[in-house]
């Protein structure tokens, strides 16, 4: 069984937000809800780095641990999903999450938090696959179609990778190896007086 994982290569991420919009447009996410976000550090300075973060589909997902109603569950392939019909919008998963992944669209009453929404790895939800209900609640189910999540598929520089952990790791390992310690190793100019 493949283990699904995301990996964002910060040497490649250029903060274009393609992943963010791909996710929103493909899954019809309401404005204000960010299943995926791009964060830039040291903006405007040498060492500026960007990274795209969504739900990481953790192995020991803290959100599953803290959910008081067991709305969050993990599939055999590691994808962590939420049942929006079970979720009560308490927000505990948000507090437990190290990545800020859970999002809460406004609910029906008093604008209270509605059911939690987060990255589904484009794997839909517990409702019937490809049903209108699944699409409405969770967006596309691309995993069932044998396709990769939209964000990674549409990544401009192939910084964001998604899929079988072994393959993702291989691709990344190869890149790290290729990069080596050449002119682009950040800080080497200063450290080793390289011209």
């Amino acid at each position, binding site marked *: 069984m493949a283990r699904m994982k995301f990996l964002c290569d910060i040497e490649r991420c250029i903060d274009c937000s393609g992943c963010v*919009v791909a996710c929103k447009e493909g899954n019809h996410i309401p404005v204000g809800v960010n299943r995926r976000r791009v964060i830039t550090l040291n903006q405007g300075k040498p060492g500026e780095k960007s990274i795209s973060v969504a739900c990481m589909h953790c192995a020991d997902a803290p959100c599953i*641990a803290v959910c008081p109603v067991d709305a969050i569950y993990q599939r055999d392939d590691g994808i962590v999903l939420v049942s929006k019909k079970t979720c009560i919008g308490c927000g505990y998963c948000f507090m437990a999450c190290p990545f800020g992944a859970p999002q809460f669209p406004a609910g029906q009453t008093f604008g209270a938090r509605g059911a939690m929404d987060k990255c589904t790895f484009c*794997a839909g939800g517990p409702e019937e*696959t490809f049903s209108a209900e699944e699409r409405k609640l969770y967006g*596309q189910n691309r995993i*069932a179609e044998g396709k*990769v999540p*939209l964000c990674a598929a549409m990544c401009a520089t192939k910084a964001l990778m998604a899929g079988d952990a072994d393959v993702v790791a291989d691709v990344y390992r190869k890149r790290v190896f290729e990069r080596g310690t050449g002119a682009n190793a950040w800080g080497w100019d200063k450290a080793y007086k390289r011209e």
Partner: protein
Amino acid sequence: MAGKKKISIRKGASFSSRITLNPKLARRSFLKLSAATAALTGVSMTGRMTGTARAAKVKDPGKAYPGSKTVKTICSYCAVGCGIKAEVQNGVWVRQEVAQDHPVSRGGHCCKGASAIDMVTSEKRLTSPMKRVNGKWTKIGWDQAMGEISAKLTSIRDTDGPDALHLNGSAKVSTEMAYLQRKFAAFWGSNNVDHQARI
């Protein structure tokens, strides 16, 4: 101290029922996934891998949008020319699919291209010709619009000459249309025609 604490997590035994809740999923989603992901994530993946992914797709087209057809087109934002596969069902563009096998973009998009479908689905699109009547925008028909415009153009041409018209063309139209814009200026009788590439 707290950071080192091992978090105890309830393992998924009680959720196993949920995992297989969706029998369709369990049956066929994962088998071909590794091949597909290999092609889609890897930058250094070769055509061989892409081929595998496509083969997998043909064998298992999925039923997300039954009866849909795929139309290839090109993103209309910048000049990189990223490929787009548009999934069209019953004459409606239902989904922007990834052109993973496009030789330049390989499925990649920036945020603009990732929402290319919005150009068609946006509720902000103009849907009818309009003119200002006493300063207020008023909807008019095509016939009226084109009639009034061509009458005015003709009268300006007659009184002031063809060079009284300036045509700002566009780099956002097709090459054919750009050609027609330049040709239009020539047939109109003026060199007052220009487009964004000046700027």
